[in-house]
């Protein structure tokens, strides 16, 4: 990836007809997506919809079964492509933080800078401290990950990724493993990052965050992109039935959907025949736009 290929507004990531199977489990069934320079794209969807797999395919933590992923013009799936060089320009933040427990916070942020970018120790530490400052943890530089709260660990993970000066940041459910009261700190760091113009691809369950920060929201279900567009439109006024159902459940978990409850009850107690009266897969299938 060269600097000239990533002008503002240019596509950084282009995904075409991406398929991924784990054995007979067809997790991704033909995705098409583009991430542009400076854009914040949030992916939402029920668990098992393939959104994390989608994200992990972009930096090749998962090997796609077929399809094309172009990052800065380079085909990631091409065996000739230097994946390490591409990953250098792409930060990743994991659900489980994945800090290196044997290294201090500073060590976590300098290790890859020194081994991969060949920066001097002083240079790497200056960069690390600058990014720790950014996530509000400069005083924790000498602490070890086990001494930090989940929210602090995740912010260190963000600082670690930022220390590589990435052109794109991938977030894989960054707040899902956190206690509720710690989510806000991580989200505000991400919000600031977005305001600074970082290109971000975020898999999340935080609808309020997606609505506020995202330039574009992708709703995935069953391995396909069901709906995609402006957050106000996708989250505020969803067009697809599956998006509506999902958002209803997420935004108002205590709300009891009488029809769905009945269907679930019928499936448990009466058997398939009765359940078929409520769920008509053949009918709903016609609404899907993804693929």
């Amino acid at each position, binding site marked *: 990836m060269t600097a000239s290929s990533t002008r503002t507004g240019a596509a950084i990531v282009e995904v075409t007809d991406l398929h991924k199977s784990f054995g007979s489990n067809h997790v991704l069934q033909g995705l098409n997506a583009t991430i542009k320079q400076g854009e914040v794209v949030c992916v939402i969807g029920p668990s098992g919809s393939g959104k994390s797999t989608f994200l992990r395919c972009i*930096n090749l*933590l998962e090997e796609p079964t077929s399809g094309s992923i172009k990052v800065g013009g380079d085909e990631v799936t091409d065996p000739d492509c230097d994946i*390490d*060089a591409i*990953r*250098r320009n*792409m*930060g*990743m933040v*994991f659900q*489980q933080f*994945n*800090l*290196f*427990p*044997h290294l201090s916070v500073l060590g976590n942020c300098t*290790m*890859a800078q020194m*081994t*991969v970018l060949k920066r001097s120790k002083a240079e790497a530490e200056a960069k690390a401290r600058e990014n720790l400052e950014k996530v509000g943890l400069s005083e924790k530089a000498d602490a070890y990950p*086990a001494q930090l709260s989940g929210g602090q660990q995740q912010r260190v*993970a963000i600082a*670690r*990724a930022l220390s*590589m000066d990435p052109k794109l940041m*991938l977030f894989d459910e960054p707040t899902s493993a956190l206690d509720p009261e710690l989510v806000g700190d991580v989200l505000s760091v991400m919000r600031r990052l977005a305001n600074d113009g970082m290109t971000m691809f975020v898999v999340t369950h935080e609808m309020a965050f997606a609505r506020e920060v995202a330039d574009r929201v992708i709703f995935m279900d069953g391995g396909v992109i069901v709906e995609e567009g402006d957050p106000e439109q996708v989250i505020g006024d969803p067009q697809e039935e599956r998006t509506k159902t999902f958002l209803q459940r997420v935004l108002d978990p205590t709300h009891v959907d009488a029809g769905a409850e009945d269907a679930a009850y019928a499936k448990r107690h009466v058997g398939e025949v009765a359940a078929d009266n409520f769920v008509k897969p053949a009918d709903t299938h016609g609404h899907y736009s993804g693929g």
Partner: protein
Amino acid sequence: MSTTITEEAPTKKKLSPRKRAQRIRWAQYALLAIVLVVFALTANWEQIQSAFFRTDMIKLTLTEGLPNALKNTIIYTAGAFVIGLILGTILALMRLSSVAPYRWIASTWIEFFRGLPAIVVFIAFSLLPLAFEGLLIPFDPYGTVWVALGLVASAYMAETIRAGIQAVPKGQIEAARSLGMPSGAATRKIVLPQAFRIITPPLTNEVILLVKDSSLVYVLGLSASGYELTKYGRDLSSSNVNLTPLVVAGFCYLIITLPLSYLVRRMEARQKKER
């Protein structure tokens, strides 16, 4: 059904499980005490002392060449440990490699040297010059012992190290790779340091086993200055027709192994606290 239970309960007074466990424990203490008393009364203490703990023999053993034997045991073990650790790490990485022939070689090696009794390996090693004429292993006699003992140790350690590597969460290597670190650097700087932290207690256990296995290297045919504790004690025992030297040599092993096992316990306790 329920009526029979309520009727039976008062007639046959059953002990509560806790009371019963207590009684069994007391019975065991009593039995132990009886065995000790009977042994103390029947044993011929003078005879025992003259067979195992003759004071003049203790003095002789300590002054003759014990420090040298102790030093040899430690040097043999330490060198074999270093060789075993290096070879074991290479073997463990080969076993986890995606290259099939590496896995085959490592598996064969490990199964072979783990399956054979150590003494058989040493005997075979002592005959090696018959097969390879002019074979010369440097640092005689240490070099030969190090290599022979190190080969046996490598097989055990490889399995321990492999378990340690596999105990490092997959997310660690993913995090390292997603930062652009090549696979080799991620293994060296992220996975191995964590793996060795996990396996320090079992690895220390292996050192203890190695200390004891070093008692078998006498079959390699060492000169007197190369004797380790067991060989030294046994030779002195048979020339004086008394077991005391061997007993003293035996206690010297405890000088090495007891601090090591204490260390293992400390490390395990600390690891438990960290979790």
